[in-house]
């Protein structure tokens, strides 16, 4: 369902609500009215009781009303009233049933049962959030690194169906797995919730999630079988895909599990993929840049899922891929070869015709996957040179343009060989008209093992993290990033930095991170998704809670899915505006005796979006990287507003 269709459904629900809020009179002129109907919108199953009130006029006996209800689903419970009869104008408390569905509440005159009033209420677990959503995650299960992508159609009561594709490096590939049922439940006032999927081949999967807004959620698989991080986004299905795209993929080879990353650009027209140029950093095969490739993408099905094949690519990306459309300019891609696994995204380039001037002040963030040399890096860069090029000077056809300079500051955490905090960096970058480019941090070795990055420019109007919503105004193009260094491989993003003021880092945020751990004795992955409140006035604090997925029992907790909470100081970097130390970022986890003594650093692209990483100074043998995204609360607000507005008429 696209966004327009979603509005139509929500509007219809509002109209249904009003139509159902009826009354009846009789020859004795007794009239019953619901002067306090149930709250507009949706009630969660077993929600806290709500008060409803009816008045009776024309009743000489003044006998009041009796309360009753029926479910729209035969044999389903509809809830209860306490008390079940009230005098006119006196409230009763309605308790919602434990199951989803529609309920009709009726107040009936005791004196004359022909006089009654009704109201409809929807029992929903998803706050009214509904539509087609695409999701993708990558992380770790018993078979090592895995990739999972899919799409679900979520009804307004939270129930869902869909399909998904799974691939790991151990040769297990599940193609077109039907999601036969499932349910989305979450707290509209916080965004925190659970997505459960039941599918034909993979069985039950459980994801913890936090909605950033109605269109986008951060998700973490948290079912004890696997842990991973990713995104779930509302789909808008185009009739066809076309134009220029940039992409990155991160994966591992089967057998020996060497990590690899790919990045590049291509053009789509119908089913034809052409003008592909890709880079690879392959732990098995080495570093390759500028490889031309082509391919074919078959048309997507009703879920936005399609298949494709690529030709003349590098490494394992040569046989079959599956893609899921998020929107006309956003595609999730999963490599379905049995000999390896990889997953990533392709983003549209809009009008294209990039130059070095397309990249402005930016924040970058990147990370390995679990199979690589574990690291994460986050920083900010400021273009500083080649004035003529920045003024959009015409470049000779077929050239990549002149090289720009930049300076900046960044942090890197390499699990095996240490960390650098607030390292001053500089270097050069270049972007060709097709978006293909590179960024070099120089001199090589000045910023740990991070130096040579492939960058692939995307549409300046795209928000890479939340593609259904626009980026912060005033920014240049974003780019996908592939780390092409000899000692490290990783993928990430480079997004415009439009607001680095400390006052803007305030409010409600959804946040998550993917934590790779290697203590020497044990290793594995933790994933966290939650929410937090950032206060901009002293004391500046980041206070929140969420779900820790720990199927490898790295924390020694009582379960694979744990509750974590934190209250951490936010310390703005007095020298580097936009950089914050969130230290100590001490996470208290239920049933775990000792809080995890993280230190963390965040870089601010805008008040709505920050990227953070674990500061290696905490010496925990772990590396995390993630996002902090400002929330729009309450969730499901569109439905609530529609219903409330209509009711007031």
């Amino acid at each position, binding site marked *: 369902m696209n966004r327009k269709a979603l509005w139509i459904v929500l509007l219809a629900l509002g109209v249904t609500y009003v139509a159902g809020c009826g009354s009846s009179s009789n020859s004795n002129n007794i009239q019953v009215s619901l002067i306090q109907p149930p709250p507009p919108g949706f009630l969660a199953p077993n929600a806290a009781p709500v008060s409803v009130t009816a008045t009776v006029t024309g009743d000489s006996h003044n006998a009041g009303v009796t309360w009753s209800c029926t479910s729209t689903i035969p044999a389903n419970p509809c809830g209860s009233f306490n008390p079940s009869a009230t005098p006119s104008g006196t409230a009763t408390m309605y308790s919602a049933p434990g199951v989803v569905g529609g309920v009709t509440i009726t107040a009936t005159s005791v004196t004359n049962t022909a006089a009654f009033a009704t109201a409809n209420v929807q029992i929903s677990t998803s706050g009214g959030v509904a539509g087609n959503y695409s999701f993708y995650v990558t992380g770790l299960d018993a*078979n090592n690194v895995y990739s999972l992508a899919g799409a679900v159609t979520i009804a307004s009561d939270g129930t869902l169906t869909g399909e998904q594709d799974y691939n790991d490096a151990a040769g*297990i590939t599940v193609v077109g797995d039907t999601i036969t049922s499932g349910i989305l439940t979450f707290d509209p006032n916080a965004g925190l919730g659970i997505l459960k999927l039941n599918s034909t081949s993979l069985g039950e999967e459980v994801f913890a999630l936090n909605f950033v807004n109605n269109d986008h959620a951060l998700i973490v698989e948290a079912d004890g079988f696997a842990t991973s991080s990713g995104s779930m986004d509302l789909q808008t299905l185009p009739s066809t895909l076309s134009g220029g795209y940039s992409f990155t993929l991160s994966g591992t080879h089967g057998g*020996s599990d060497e990590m690899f990353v790919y990045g590049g650009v291509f053009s789509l027209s119908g089913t034809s993929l052409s003008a592909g140029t890709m880079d690879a950093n392959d732990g*098995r095969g080495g570093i390759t840049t500028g490889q031309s490739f082509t391919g074919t993408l078959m048309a997507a099905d009703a879920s936005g899922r399609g298949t494709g094949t690529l030709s003349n690519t590098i490494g394992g990306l040569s046989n079959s891929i599956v893609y899921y459309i998020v929107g006309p300019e956003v595609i999730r891609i999963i490599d379905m070869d049995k000999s390896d696994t990889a997953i990533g995204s392709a983003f549209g380039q809009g009008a294209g015709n990039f130059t070095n001037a397309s990249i402005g002040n930016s924040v970058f963030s990147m990370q390995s996957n679990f199979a690589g*040399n574990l690291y994460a890096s986050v920083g900010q860069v400021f273009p500083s040179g080649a004035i003529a090029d920045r003024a959009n000077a015409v470049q000779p056809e077929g050239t990549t343009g002149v090289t720009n300079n930049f300076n900046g500051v960044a942090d890197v955490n390499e699990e095996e060989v240490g960390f650098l905090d607030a390292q001053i960096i500089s270097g050069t970058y270049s972007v060709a008209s097709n978006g293909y480019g590179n960024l070099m941090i120089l001199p090589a070795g000045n910023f740990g093992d991070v130096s040579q990055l492939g960058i692939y420019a995307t549409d300046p109007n795209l928000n890479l993290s939340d593609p259904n919503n626009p980026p912060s105004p005033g920014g240049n193009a974003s780019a996908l990033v592939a780390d092409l260094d000899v*000692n490290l491989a990783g993928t990430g993003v480079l997004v415009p930095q439009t607001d680095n003021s400390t006052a803007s880092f305030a409010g409600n945020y959804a946040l998550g991170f993917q934590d790779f751990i290697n203590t*020497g004795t044990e*290793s594995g992955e933790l994933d966290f998704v939650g929410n937090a409140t950032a206060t901009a006035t002293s004391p500046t604090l980041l206070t929140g809670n969420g779900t820790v997925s720990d199927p490898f029992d790295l924390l020694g907790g009582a379960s694979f899915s744990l509750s974590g909470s934190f209250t951490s100081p936010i310390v703005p970097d007095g020298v580097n505006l936009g950089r914050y130390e969130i230290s100590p970022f001490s996470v208290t986890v239920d049933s775990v005796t000792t809080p995890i003594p993280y230190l963390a650093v965040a870089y601010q692209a805008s008040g709505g979006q920050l990227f953070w990483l674990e500061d290696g100074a905490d010496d925990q043998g772990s590396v995390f990287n993630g996002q902090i995204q400002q929330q729009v609360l309450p969730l499901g607000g569109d439905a609530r507003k529609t219903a409330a507005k209509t009711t007031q008429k």
Partner: protein
Amino acid sequence: MKRILQGLGFTTLLALALNAAPAYAQTTVATTTSAIPLRYDVSKEVTFSATVQSIPAKSSHGLVATPGLMLQTGSGTVQGRLTQFTLSGKDSLTITAGEHLQVTGVMTTTLQNKQVFLIRTIQMNGRTYAIRNERGFPLGHPARNIVTATESKGGQL
């Protein structure tokens, strides 16, 4: 989730592993070199014998400071670095304190100016296991990565 239950038999896994290399080798690649110094330079490998002095202990929250394998050699103590697959996960190795090993790897200086030894192969109980490839990237399933004698490289510490 049924994915674990779908685990393949060893024979199938072996076949997949054997098939992976030829599939990859079909590609034609134009490799480039990075200006950044090699963290793992195979030409600088050394091999030495050591006794495992200690392995990191698991703390109450699972994360520990100073990860690494402390190795006692004839000339002192060396902090050896294992990959994330070496002691955890499928086909991992078991190493205990007091065990005698022969390790091949490269000494490197961390960003905090500490010396650590990046271990690529471990010889114990008559077998040599590879835990990294020659570029220094971690290798999964080390217990299956048995190195033949002719692949051993490097001088002596």
